């Protein structure tokens, strides 16, 4: 157990929002017990809070996380490399969102109708393109991890989601709290938070 693990737990809450222990531990890449121990320490320091079983950041926790990740980025001298990798991520992001939407909605007669997954050939086409995008994402995540190693954890989480879909649990592409889209959304948030880029046109939080 190191303080960098504690920072990882704090930062996970900044990227995934309110979550119960198993999701926090999974995202931080820690055993549940270790993650819980850090959460309790962080709660004692007033940085995190627990509401109806879910852990979340306090305002001071958010500020403390911002301080720590800014320091981490500076120490690693990783801003330029991370920015370059973020730009590659943003090329993939619209395609990922197209694919997620195509998985949820299918356009028939010009109309988007819910995809009821009754047409295996359609689902197979979406999944094939998803797998292709995932291969290209692998290279981008490698760039991100080369800049800041903690980004490497997203690789495993995305792969796990895609493996579950391939095993037949179709909700893990877009529709669960550990779906490919959810993890990707958190990666997007992590990049915005780490690089200090405001989510587009947000007037106030």
């Amino acid at each position, binding site marked *: 157990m190191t303080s960098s693990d504690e920072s990882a737990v704090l930062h996970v809450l*900044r*990227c*995934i*929002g*309110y979550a119960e222990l198993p999701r926090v531990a999974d995202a931080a890449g820690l055993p549940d017990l270790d993650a819980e121990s850090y959460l309790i320490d962080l709660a004692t320091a007033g940085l995190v809070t627990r*509401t109806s079983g*879910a852990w*979340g950041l306090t305002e001071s926790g958010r500020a403390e996380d911002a301080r720590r990740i800014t320091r981490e980025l500076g120490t690693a001298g990783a801003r330029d490399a991370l920015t370059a990798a973020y730009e590659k991520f943003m090329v993939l992001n*619209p*395609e990922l*969102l*197209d*694919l*997620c*939407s*195509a998985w*949820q*909605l299918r*356009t*028939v*007669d*010009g*109309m*988007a*109708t819910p995809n009821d997954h009754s047409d295996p050939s359609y689902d197979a*086409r*979406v999944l*094939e*393109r998803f797998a*292709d*995008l995932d291969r*290209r994402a692998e290279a981008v995540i490698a760039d991100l991890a080369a800049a800041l190693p903690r980004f490497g954890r997203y690789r495993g989480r995305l792969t796990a989601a895609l493996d579950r879909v391939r095993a037949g649990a179709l909700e893990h592409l*877009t*529709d*669960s*709290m550990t*779906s490919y*889209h*959810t993890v990707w*959304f*958190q990666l*997007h*948030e992590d990049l915005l938070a780490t690089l200090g880029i405001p*989510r*587009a*046109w*947000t*007037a*106030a*939080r």
Partner: protein
Amino acid sequence: MTWIYPLTPGTGESADILGGKGHGLITLRRLGLPVPPGFVIGTPACRAFLRDGRFPDGLETELAAAVRTLENTTGRRFGSGGGRRFGSGGGRPLAVSVRSGAAVSMPGMMDTVLNLGLTTEATATVPDDAMGRLHAAVRTVFTSWHSPRATTYRELNGIPHDLGTAVVVQAMVFGDRDEHSGTGVAFSRDPNTGDKAPFGDVLFGRQGDDVVSGRSTPDPLSELAAREPAVWEQLVAALHQLERHYRDACHVEFTFETGALWFLQVRPGGLTGRAALRTAVDLADEHLIDRRTAVRRVSARHLQAARTPRIDTGDETDLLTRGRGACPGVVSGRIAVTADQAAHMAADGPVILVRPDTSPLDMHGLAAAAGVATSRGGPTSHAAVVARAMGKPAVVDAAALTVDTAADHVRIGERLLPAGTLITIDGTGGEIALGKPSITTETADTHLDRLLTWADELSGDHSQRPAEARLSAAHARL
């Protein structure tokens, strides 16, 4: 010319060669409607480029000749820009737009280059550099056919990968030139209801890409009637003329520059659900199509969609604004402006989470809410994907809406709505209404009744049965 076709009424090639955009622009020219001068590089040039990795023989020569013709038509010089967009008289340079346009619509999937010929380097260099930039822009558009995103789009929509795209090169017109300039999109009929009245958005004093980038908020198209009556009248007359030509509803993209209207695109059809049904019946009543055609144009999917409950947008409804529907369903609830607020308020009844955009930090609020409305993003934004994952009705891209969490209210135009205000959202048409307006279903729809009567006349079967059966019996006879 082998590769390039002028945007003139005499060009007779099909949309397979000219692309849908180029073909539509030539149709506009034939109808005598104003289109910025320009030319189309046909899809065969793109296919040759993608096959050989270079421009086909003769394309560069034709491109140079086409640009010279464009210079002569406009009386301006290409590449003499010097960065001055709005110089006076003869000092005004020729700038061009370079847009993709495949035979099958692939909206937003390929590249567009605007304002080419206006870069500041042009002062210090020879005009040949502008030609070099034009070549590069054409290569960029050609190459974007094979971008992974475009490939994915074709794969999902069953579009062949070997078609290639045409490239439309036109003299730029500027919606941001002065206070009598602007840009917009206009539908000949309301795509939500089929109501026969021009419908769309207009952005005064701006270019169209300002909307996409979120720098500006568009106004309802009807604003044009008050602010630029001459442009409005010309636009309405053109939509009428286009409907008679296509024998269908249609929509256009337009720019007006110093009071002069220009069309940048036209596309027929595209209405769905209730709007498709009503328009088919109305067009038959207007004798633009016969009843057989009207019945053929309505599919079983349209009938199903027409049955989706919707906010009644009649006079009794206080419609606050309209965004885009991202997850169908009508739901009422009290406004919450943060996720935490939504989570707290949800214990006392349904809540609508209203946010500029959503982040993972909003997920617990979204889970607690009955529906969500955002001012940014589109139907394929993270917010839309998450709303659909949770099955929550969602309106996105309600650009007129701003959220002020510090003041604990939402502003829509001049109106302030404190958190806790009851609103209703419609995740099909994107409407946001005050209070709890009445909901419509298609059961009382006279247009549906009439269309199904026509269907029965075609099938010869007048027995009692479900609407889909009546329609499919008629389709079987067509």
